[in-house]
């Protein structure tokens, strides 16, 4: 119970901090909009305005990944720069329990992107999104934030020792957009890529959101897979973090300051 309280409090606190960084926020929202705009033009030219709805949803979710990819993988680097990393590690609380709310906060920032993109689509391209199944839709949105935040947690753990973590996070931006079916149906991708898509939580979150808007046959499966993969990422991250921290204390390689 105490842990849950800590978790929620930490998540809200970091969300508050990230929200206040107007500069970061501005660019985080604006950047995916450039891509969304290009995508709208492309799809409208190729297939007409009817398909712009699902495209808008895909573009909206792109923003959640953008908000997270760099920010989450460099979460520990940020703490290091602030000088708080030492304090977090030296606390009696498990670092995983400290880190996960941070990466979830970065993906929650993505909610701003979703809203901005859908508004952009509505007012500039006349795209209306139906919501056939509100519960599914809502769970899909929550799911995508949770699964992306969890994936961000795994990345943060993987790059815990690297000072260049943000660069690695940045380079994953386009590949994830491509592979998770945000704008390109998975069926169009080469066969060998598809297993990667299935293993990425955002793929299922995207399907759930689209199912919530337009109806879909496997909505329950999509939601389950989305949250299930999120849980798997967290578990994996917790295991890896334990090992990494031990090694870091031994070799003084965490460079806590």
């Amino acid at each position: 119970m105490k842990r849950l309280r800590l978790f929620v409090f930490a998540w809200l606190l970091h969300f508050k901090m990230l929200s206040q960084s107007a500069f970061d926020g501005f660019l985080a929202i604006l950047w995916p909009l450039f891509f969304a705009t290009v995508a709208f033009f492309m799809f409208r030219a190729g297939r007409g305005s009817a398909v712009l709805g699902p495209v808008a949803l895909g573009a909206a979710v792109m923003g959640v990944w953008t908000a997270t990819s760099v920010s989450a993988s460099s979460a520990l680097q940020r703490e290091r720069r602030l000088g708080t990393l030492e304090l977090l590690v030296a606390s009696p609380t498990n670092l995983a329990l400290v880190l996960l709310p941070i990466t979830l906060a970065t993906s929650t920032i993505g909610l701003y992107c979703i809203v901005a993109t859908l508004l952009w689509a509505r007012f500039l391209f006349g795209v209306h999104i139906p919501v056939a199944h509100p519960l599914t839709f809502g769970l899909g949105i929550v799911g995508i934030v949770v699964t992306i935040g969890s994936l961000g947690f795994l990345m943060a753990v993987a790059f815990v020792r690297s000072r260049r973590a943000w660069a690695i996070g940045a380079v994953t931006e386009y590949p994830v957009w491509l592979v998770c079916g945000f704008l390109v149906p998975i069926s169009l991708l080469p066969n060998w890529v598809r297993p990667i898509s299935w293993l990425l939580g955002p793929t299922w979150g995207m399907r759930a959101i689209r199912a919530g808007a337009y109806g879909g046959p496997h909505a329950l499966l999509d939601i389950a897979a989305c949250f299930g993969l999120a849980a798997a990422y967290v578990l994996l991250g917790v295991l890896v973090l334990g090992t990494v921290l031990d090694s870091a204390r031994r070799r003084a390689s965490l460079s806590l300051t």
Partner: protein
Amino acid sequence: MSVIEAGGLRRTYKTTTGVIRRRRLEVEAVKGISFSVERGELFGLLGPNGAGKTTTIKMLITLLLPTAGDARVLGLDVVADAREVRKRIGYVFGGDRGLYERLSALDNLRYFAELYGVSGRDQRTRIAEVLELVGLTGREQERVEGYSRGMRQRLHIARGILHDPEVVFLDEPTIGVDPVGARQLRGTIADLVAAGKTVLLTTHYMFEADALCDRIAVIAKGRIVGEGTPEELKAQVADGRVTEIEVYGVDEATVDRVRALDGVASVVVEERDQSQLLVVQTTADREVTAPVLALLEGLEVGRVASREPTLEDAYVALVGGE
């Protein structure tokens, strides 16, 4: 049982040098440090930058594993029982960093209260208490980014004692703080000890260690070179007097001859703009002014003064001798 026990602590760092051809270097930052701290003591680790103070403290607060040796805090091993140790200690370090700038002091404290396991029920009272203790009541709603260095340090201390730890580790807490603020901080630190906590303080300010600490260990280049109460240290090194002679243009050979004089423990030359200051420590209550001045014949001599040795002299002798 001592509250803190360090036995033969060693810590080696591996670093790489060079860009093209990388070489592995092993640097031993701490070379076998042993000391103990009793309950209710204010113990100081005094030493110049790079002496190994911070490395030692990090080993004690479980952030670093010793390469050799062991340490116990409150009877718990810092390696095997790290989590238990963390629950019972507070860690405060000096400088501007270590706080979330964009948040208010209150938010910072609430976050760390959660992290350090202060129960929800107690948080409000506890936060109010620590704010009162460090003198920040009324300013907790302001964002940390607007705080002065002294205020940040006080907030640091507040954060460090939120969970009411029995032992508090302070790593150069007054560094960069203005004199008035620093004095206030020292008062707060003394209050901590008065309240029954055990405090280990690292610093390179002599007067601070002299004023605050019950006992001091002087560290230089990874080793303890002197230990005891401030009085004992002063006595240990120079139970005589210190004579300061201002001279214009003294050379190394002459200084060596002064060193070789009977009764002279050490000579330190301080360079001034136009002159040098010879600080001569004498071993016993010997009058060496005359022999020294005789050696300096031919040179222009300015002020000559004689005084009691301070902790600084003891420190310089201990540390300079390494």
